[in-house]
């Protein structure tokens, strides 16, 4: 097994899937000669040629809209949108068509489309380059919103996304692109979309996170263990929508104390849906109000103040202590 960072793991997934399935096409801005601004598509154009790795004109609506047409006509397009802040140009095509063509045509057509985009803060970038707006997408029926948390699950989920018969929005935590390496097997590995996983077992409280927030959440869990001997169960969502609440609910029933961590703004964020599910399905097991450790309801500041916006280990630990201290 090779130790790969997130960029290399995603590149491996694309390369292997393009080898395996000649219907897979990669398109976007700078994905060819330049290998993508984060180098996720590096080397693909040399290997597969410019008909399968397409540097498009600069127009996100057209990247997504033409990919919908390709998907309907039998290809498996994987679009790259350069930053999350530019996905909205393509949002109309996803909302109005990608999510609806199966439904509108009563099953005659389907849209096996993947839209990849980096999301989230932490890379000292410009405005529009650091947002975490997955809740906007998670609200769309017919769309799967997937956010991996590390190289190995990113590779496996991207393979599943490309093979999925329905459209998948694949948000890559850009803060993790080169943050750490993991063993990623060369042989094919997939993970089911629509399932969360237990990233750390524990019986005293439950911490729910995904994407770039998983690492500080796991660190907070270790600190709680060291400081107070409290063992947190950490749930990594992996798929935001459709949300799998089985593990969440089981864990909440076990611990009675839950905090949700995400860098997206709090109001109407993924945490709100999670709290609602817990109220519906684990209310009588809850020992304390569910906590939300999230970004604030503001535009994410430029990078000098970004650290105050993003949830970090101390904020997660503080919230967890309040949960544990609740009578």
């Amino acid at each position, binding site marked *: 097994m090779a130790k790969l960072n997130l960029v290399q793991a995603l590149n491996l997934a694309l390369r292997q899937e393009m080898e395996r399935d000649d219907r897979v*096409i990669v398109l976007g801005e700078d994905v060819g000669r330049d290998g993508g601004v984060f180098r996720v598509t590096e080397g693909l154009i040399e290997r597969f040629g410019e*008909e399968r790795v*397409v540097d*498009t*004109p600069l*127009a996100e*609506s*057209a990247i*997504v*809209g*033409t*990919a*919908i*047409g*390709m*998907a*309907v*006509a*039998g*290809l498996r*397009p994987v679009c790259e949108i350069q930053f999350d802040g530019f996905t909205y140009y393509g949002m*109309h*095509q996803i909302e*109005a*068509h990608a*999510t609806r*063509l*199966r*439904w*509108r*045509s*009563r*099953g*005659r*057509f*389907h849209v096996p489309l993947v839209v990849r985009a980096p999301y989230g803060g932490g890379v000292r970038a410009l405005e529009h380059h650091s947002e975490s707006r997955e809740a906007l997408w998670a609200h769309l*029926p*017919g769309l799967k919103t997937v956010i991996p948390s590390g190289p190995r699950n990113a590779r496996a989920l991207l393979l599943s996304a490309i093979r*999925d*018969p*329905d459209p998948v929005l694949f948000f890559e935590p850009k803060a993790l692109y080169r943050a750490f390496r993991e063993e990623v097997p060369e042989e094919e590995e997939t993970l089911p979309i*629509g399932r969360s996983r237990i990233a750390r077992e524990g019986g005293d409280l439950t911490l729910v996170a995904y994407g770039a927030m998983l690492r500080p959440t796991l660190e907070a869990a270790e600190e709680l263990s060291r400081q107070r001997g409290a063992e947190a169960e950490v749930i990594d969502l992996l798929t935001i929508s*459709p*949300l*799998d*609440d*089985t593990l969440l609910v089981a864990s909440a029933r076990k611990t009675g104390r839950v905090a949700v961590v995400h860098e997206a703004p709090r109001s109407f964020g993924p945490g709100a849906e999670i709290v609602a599910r817990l109220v519906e399905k684990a209310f009588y097991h809850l020992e304390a109000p569910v906590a939300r450790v999230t970004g604030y309801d503001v535009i994410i500041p430029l990078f000098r103040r970004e650290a105050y916006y993003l949830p970090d280990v101390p904020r997660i630990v503080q919230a967890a202590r309040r949960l544990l201290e609740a009578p």
Partner: protein
Amino acid sequence: MPRTPIEIPESIEHLSILDETGRLDRDLEPRLEEGLLLRLHRTMLLARRFDERLLSLQRQGRIGTFPPSSGQEAAHLGAAAALSPEDWMVPAFRELAAEIWRGRTLESVLLYNAGFNEGGHIPPERNDLPISIPVGSQILHAVGIAWALRHRRTDRVAMVFFGDGATSQGDFHEGLNFAGVFSLPAIFVCQNNQWAISVPRARQTRSRTLAQKALAYGIHGIQVDGNDLLAVYAAAAEAVGRARAGGGPTLIECVTYRLSVHTTADDPRRYRTEEEVESWRRRDPLPRFQKYLADKGLLSEEGVRAAEEEVAREIQQAVERAEEAMKALGDPLDLFEHLWAEMPPTLREQREELIAALAARGGEETHG
């Protein structure tokens, strides 16, 4: 440094073959076989009478809001007639005659407009997308389909319809641009019917023609008399042939007119004059084409009467069949279907919730 002109040696042609008085340009006349001409006439007549019937069904409350296409039949039918069944057609929502030509049944139109999703089903033998309502957004799908067709080394093409209003949308420009850059086999058919609800064509663009937008993207463009079925067919056949041969995309502006309302919720008296509508009625594509066929000795007055009776019967039967079919439809649980290949657990739970709600309601009704 002086200012120097950059020569752009292109111009836009306007094509007219059969004018409103019925005068024919024999040099330009496409040589269509008799059977095809008569089928085109029958489809045009069927679409016109069906459109009128739909309007009356809507006024009686038997179907919902729908967008009539009367007056524009030559524009969309003439273009679609240049396609082979293996080609793809991407409609907007005012292409009734073209959809019928491509095999859409009247029952499916009736079901759809009566509010049953079942009417949106596209059978496997039709390479057409269902109608698309957000203006201009479907243009990109045709470009992507054309891309896939070329990628698989077929000689098929994709044709997309949209209106004059759509040329103000970004997706129109992005679509033409992508098709031009990648030289894709796409045919863009603009039904310039002069009005985007209440906003006139002049308010969409200062350009003299819509066809000239093609020049900016380095693709072929032509303006045709959109009420002249022969001219539309000729322009479309040329564009299709060129696209099949690898010659890239074409924008065809069909100058036509919406003789009826935008949708049944619209009152055109608020924004246009009866004189204007009357002037376009004189350019109606249907009698013009009938005169052409009569002059060729292909259609007698008796032939028109017979065709009228035939389409009236066909429409009546379709309405009866559709109303019969509707009785068996309406399963509320259908609303959960066809969204996903596999229904996610959350949605299965919501489906159970509706089942329970319906059961409870049934209970109340029996108590009441």
